[in-house]
C-alpha cells in the first residue's frame, strides 16, 4: 500500500489520475442517479411545451439576467408555499434547458407568477417598475418595446432544443415562424395553428398592447404569463404546508 502511494507521489501523471478519480466519484454519485430519475418522477403527459414566442421570451429572461434577482423554485417550506404557491415539482422544469431556479431573491419568486397580473401590468412594470411599486429595485426594461422579435429564427431554436431532448414535432419546427407571429395576433389567420399545435390553453393575445409590431416586450410577457401554468398541479397550492414538507420525489 505504501509502495503504491510513494510511486503515485513521485509520478505526476499518476498523481493527476488519482486526483481525477478521487474527485469524479463524488460528482458521479450525486449526479448519475438523477439521470434515471424519470422512473421516479411520474411522467406528466399534460406537460405543455413552450411556444416559440415563449421560448423567445425565455431567452430574453436569460439575456437580461432576470435570474440573478429572481428565483423560480418554490421550496417545500411553509412560508415559501404560502407566499408563492405550491412548491415546485421536478417535472415542471423538465423542458428547461437550462433550469432557471436561481440562487438569490432580490425580487420575489417567479415560478408561479403566470396569471397573477394582467398583461398591461406586466408590460408597464417592466418598462418602469417604480411607477407601480415605488420601493422596487428592479431595472427599467423600456428598451424591450423597441426591439423586434425575429420569428424566422425560431425554427432553428426549436431544432436545437429538440436535439437536447424537448419533444418538438416536425410540424412545430416548420411552423415556428408562423406560430411566433400568430400567438400575439389573436384576430389573425395564424392564431388557429398555435392552438392546434400547443393546446387550447395557450395564451393567444397581444401582450404589450401594441398590435403594430411584435416586440421583445410581447415575448417576455408571454413567457412570464406561462410560468407555473404548463401543467396542472396534483393538488391546490398551499394544501399541505408544514415547515418542512418533503418533496414527492423523496425516496430516502
Amino acid at each position, binding site marked *: 500500500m505504501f509502495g503504491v502511494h510513494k510511486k503515485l507521489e513521485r509520478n505526476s501523471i499518476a498523481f493527476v489520475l488519482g486526483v481525477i478519480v478521487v474527485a469524479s466519484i463524488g460528482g458521479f454519485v450525486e449526479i448519475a442517479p438523477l439521470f434515471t430519475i424519470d422512473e421516479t418522477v411520474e411522467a406528466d403527459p399534460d406537460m405543455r411545451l413552450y411556444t416559440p414566442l415563449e421560448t423567445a421570451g425565455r431567452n430574453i429572461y436569460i439575456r437580461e439576467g432576470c435570474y440573478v434577482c429572481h428565483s423560480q423554485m418554490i421550496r417545500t417550506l411553509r412560508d415559501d408555499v404560502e407566499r408563492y404557491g405550491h412548491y415546485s415539482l421536478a417535472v415542471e422544469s423538465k423542458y428547461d434547458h437550462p433550469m432557471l431556479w436561481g440562487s438569490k431573491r432580490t425580487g420575489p419568486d417567479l415560478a408561479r407568477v403566470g396569471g397573477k397580473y394582467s398583461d398591461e401590468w406586466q408590460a408597464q412594470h417592466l418598462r418602469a417598475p417604480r411607477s407601480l411599486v415605488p*420601493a422596487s429595485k428592479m431595472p427599467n426594461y423600456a428598451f424591450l418595446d423597441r426591439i423586434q422579435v425575429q420569428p424566422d429564427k425560431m425554427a432553428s431554436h426549436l431544432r436545437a432544443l429538440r436535439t437536447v431532448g424537448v419533444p418538438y414535432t416536425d410540424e412545430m419546427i416548420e411552423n415556428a415562424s408562423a406560430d411566433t407571429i400568430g400567438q400575439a395576433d389573436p384576430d389573425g389567420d395564424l392564431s388557429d395553428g398555435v392552438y392546434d399545435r400547443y393546446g387550447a390553453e395557450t395564451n393567444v393575445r397581444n401582450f404589450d398592447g401594441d398590435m403594430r409590431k411584435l416586440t421583445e416586450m410581447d415575448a417576455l410577457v408571454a413567457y412570464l404569463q406561462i410560468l407555473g401554468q404548463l401543467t396542472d398541479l396534483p393538488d391546490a397550492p398551499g394544501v399541505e404546508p408544514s415547515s418542512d414538507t418533503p418533496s414527492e420525489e423523496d425516496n430516502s
Partner: protein
Amino acid sequence: MTFDFSPAERDAAIGTSFVAILIGVVMMVSSQSAAFTTHGAMFFAFGVLAFFGFAKDYNKPQAQPYSRDVYYDTPIKLGILLSIAWAIFGFFIGDWVAWLLAYPDLTFDAAWSSFGRIRPAHTTAVIFGFGGNALMATSFHVVQRTCRTSLPGRYGPIFILLGYNLFCLLAVTGYFLGVTQSKEYAEPEWYADILLTVVWVGYFFVFLNTLARREEKHIYVANWYYIAFIVVVALLHIVNNLAVPVSFGDTKSYSAFSGVQDAMTQWWYGHNAVAFFLTAGFLGMMYYYLPKAAGRPIFSYRMSIISFWGITFMYMWAGSHHLHYTALPHWVQTLGMTFSIVLLVPSWASAGNALLTLNGAWDKVRDNATLRFMMVAAVFYGLSTFEGSFLAIRPVNSLSHYTDWTIGHVHSGALGWVAFITFGAIYSVVPQLWKRERMYSPALVEVHFWLALAGTVIYVFAMWNSGIIQGLMWRTYSENGTLTYSFIESLEAMHPYYIARAVGGLLFLMGGLVCAYNVWKTISSSKIVGRVSTSPDGVLEGAA
C-alpha cells in the same frame, strides 16, 4: 517578449496569431447576430495585435537562449499585471452593482448597463480575471521555484495567458451584449468555452511538463493544490458546459441538461468552482507564500497532505447544499449536507496550519503588512468555511438561502480569503520579479491593508445583518397565522445595509487602486538590485 523565443517558438507565435485572425474572419463571415460579429471582430483584432507584437522583434537574435537553469518570469509579470487590472475593473463593477441595489437608477438608460448584465460581469471579472490571472501567474512562479527548473518553453505560457484573457474579454463583453448561458460562474457561451478548453489543456501540459523536469524528488505540496485546481476545473468546465448551439454563427446555445439534472450538474460545477478555483488554487498560493514570508516552514507538512486529500475527496459530494428544499431528491440533499459538515475538518486543518506557522513570527506579522494580508486571509478562510458548513445544514439553509446571508458568506470568502491571499502574494512577488529591494512604498501597503480590512468587515457585517433580517421577515407569522411582512417590506428593510455594503465596497476598491499605484511605482522606479535578498531565513524584505 519575442526576443526570448527560439526561432520555432517565433513561428508558433506568428502562426497562432494567424489562427486567431482566421477564426475572427470565419466568425464574422458566418455570423447571424450582431454579438457574434463583434466577438469575431475581437478575435480578429486580438490576432492582429498579437501578430504585430510578435513580429516586431521577429528577426532579433534570441536574448537569452533557453536553459532549464534560468527561470522564465515574463508570463508571471504579465499575469500579475493583468490580475491587478482585472481587479480594479471587477471591484469597480462590483461596487457599481452594490450602489444599484441601493439606488436602482444610478445607471445609464441602456440595455448593456442594466443590473442583470453587469452583475455577471462583476463575478467573471473578479473570479476569472483577477483570481484566474493571479493563480496562473503564481502557479508559474511557485512551480519553477519549488522544482528548481524553468518552464518547459517560452511561448507556451504566454499563449496560455493571452488566450485566457481573450476568454475573459469575450465573457465580459458578452454579458454587456446580452450573450450568456445563465449558468452561474459558467455564463460564457459555447465558442468562448471552446477557447477556454484549448487554453486550459495547454496550461495543464505546461504545468505537468515543468513538474516532469523538476530537480527535486518530492513535489512541494503547493503544487499539488495547483494541479488539483487545473485538473478538476477542466473536468467541471467540460461537463457543465455541454450544449448544442442554435447554429454556427449564433451566440446562443441550449444546455444539454434540463431541470433537476441541470440543477445538480450546475451546482456540482458551481460548488466545485468554489472548491477548486477559489479554494484549492489559493491554498496552493498560501502554502508557498505564507511560510516563505514568515520565514518559517509550514507548521505541519503532514497536515497539509491530509487536508489536501480531504478537500479533494469531499468537496465533490457537497454541491447539493445549494439545492436544499428544492425538487432535488431528499437523499441527495442529505448527502450534500453531511459532506459539507465533514468538510470543515480539512478546511480548518489548513487554516490552523497557516496560523500555527505564524506562531512565533507574530512580530513579523505586526511589522509586515504583506504577511498580515496572508494572516487575515487564513483567518477569513477559517471563518468562511465554518460559515459554509453551518449554512449547509438544512434548517439553517432554510433561513439563509436566497438571502443576502449567502452574499455575505461569498464575500467573506472572496474578499477576506481570496483577495487577501492574492494581495499578499502580489506584494511578495512584485519586488522579486522586477528585482527591486522592496515595494515602492511600504506605507501604502499598510494603507491598502487597512482599507481592505475595513471594507471587508463592513461588507460582511452589513450582509449578515440584512440576510438574517430578510430571512426572518419572510417567515414571520402573525398571531392569526398569516405572513406578517410583504415582500416589499423586506425589501425596504434592506436599504440601509445596501448603502453600508456599497461604502465598504468603495473602501475595498480604493485599496485596490492604492495597490495598483504602488505596483506601478515599484516597477517604474529605477532602483534595481542585482539579486533579491532572500535572506537566510527566506524572508523577502519586501513591504515592511
